[in-house]
């Protein structure tokens, strides 16, 4: 399940109000206003900074929705 922390990072980066945006496990980037290919890199960097982790490009490539991104964060934190 998506943590409030991850949702907040994404919304902050896109200047969205988390209370007005639905983001769940199945949400894909194109469904979120402002989340395009240019902003994608900024969102990933913001997640890395906030959690203090580093992703490899190929790991991010495998994340086809926000749920998969959350799992990637969790796996980094448990290492």
């Amino acid at each position, binding site marked *: 399940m998506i943590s409030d922390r991850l949702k907040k990072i994404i919304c902050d980066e896109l200047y*969205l109000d988390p209370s007005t945006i639905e983001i769940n496990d199945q949400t894909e980037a*194109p469904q979120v206003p*402002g989340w*395009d290919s240019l902003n994608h890199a900024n969102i990933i*960097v913001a997640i890395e900074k906030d959690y203090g982790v580093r992703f*490899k490009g190929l790991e*991010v*490539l495998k994340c086809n929705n926000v749920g998969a991104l959350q799992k990637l964060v969790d796996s980094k934190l448990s290492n």
Partner: protein
Amino acid sequence: MIDFSSLQGNTLWERWQYFAQTTPDKEAIIHYRAADEPVRWTYAALLETANKFSLYLKNIGVKKGDVCAIIIRHNPYFYPFYLGITGIGALPSVLAYPNPRLHPEKFRQGLTGMAQRSGLDWIFTETELEDLILPFVEDKETTVNELFFPLEWNFHKEIDKESLQELNFIRAGIKENEPMLLQHSSGTTGLQKPVVLSHSAILSHVENYGKSIELSENDKIVSWLPLYHDMGLIAAYHLALASGVTSIQIDPFEWVLAPILLFMAASEEKATLTWLPNFAYNLMASKLSDEEMEDITLESLRMIVNCSEPVRAESHKKFFERFNEFGLNENALGAMYAMAETTLTVTQTEPGKRAAEISIDRESLSSGKVVISNDETKNRVCVSSGNIIEECEIKIVDNNRDEVDGDGSGEIAVKSISMFSGYRNYPEKTAEVLDDEGWYYTGDIGFLYNDELYVIGRKKDVIIVAGNNVYPEDVEDVVGKVENVLPGRVIAFGEDDTELGTEQISIVAETNFETEEELKKLRLDILRAGMSVNININKVYLAPSRWLIKSSSGKPSRKANRERIKNKNDEQVWSIK
């Protein structure tokens, strides 16, 4: 260096066949994939499969001169299919695969607009898009004959002699001055401008451009650029196949998510040449970690050519400083100036030499004069796009299209042997940009210094986002229809994003909304409206009624209002960032 005069073939098909016969086992295309081994097409295998596609296309009724739209994702069969279309004298036209955020109706509207101008005859796509495209094909008004799924075709049977003779007969009737392909400029709602290029325009361009970059048989091109974009299609695809060199093709969607793929492919395959829009320099320099760069060497890359959006000195600096330790040669940092209307390249920096940078006095430049300056507080650093390639001419003109003095800046006008013959079915747009003497007025502003071209801005309002042209009219049209935006009271413009090294889209819209909550909701509605036509609006400025300054035509002025926003001292304007 390749001796272009020795290469045979007056049409693209003849040229490809020449390489299939003379260098059959040489790799033509390396179809690179993030999760799998690459698929490798030799020249012989590529042409053999292309022949099968040609026969299939002929049998379903595709004829010489028909326009064949291709909407297919990164797939190894794309290449022989594209060649197969050319092999019966039809015109391939690569269209962008629809982004999931694009509203189906908007996508079909885009196709309708495109079909009206280009006269699309056939659509070739994937089964996944059948439901999306079929209503468009079944529309009574459409020019499209039918929809096909070429990736599903079965090719177990070899081509018999008789069929091959039929194909050869068709091919003998294809002349070098006849249309070979059709490209579309960017845009979403019918503003696309179709450019048709002949076999001779492309082959001349391959020769002239190939010479300018000293293309050799040992070169290997690597690219993630989409093939619906002129830089991807001409530089990274046609240039390779018409010169007998190898092209490594990466999925653009995968590259955006994992930019390391370009360097992985370059390092593994020892690629020598690549073309990138400016934003890619910033993105890669800031995103790729040392961990990802482990085992990667960039020593083989002899030219990295910056093109498709204004070249920024700070992007080259950032890129070189980041990747120098991984073997990047400083002198590989080149640049070019190019456009679909001249097939591609107009100017190119010299191989083995970093693109020159000069400091110009900003104030003089704004009044059209080029004055070298050492005063850092008043300077603007301009990056060269290089020298004019062979059989191409440039002149710098003023607003009356009169040539300016040697040290003046103005609109760049171009004449080339590889020039398009006008936008297809768009005579009014052609007349605006092409004069009787064959000069094409680009709408870009620049100057010549030491015989090199420096591009410094645009006369046109087009916004270039990561190498893609976005027309403000498209954005204004969609935002103007959002509820609570005052009808017709919106302008769109590009704002520099120095961190990303590109422009982003901003809009100013008038509304009667006043409270923070209402304005936030309206911003979200505007962002969603942009998403429905695959336009990402970065900044939303909301202003009260009658805020926008009108131009003499009575419409809100983009230039005047952009300046007003830039000054950032108007309390009436609401924006969240």
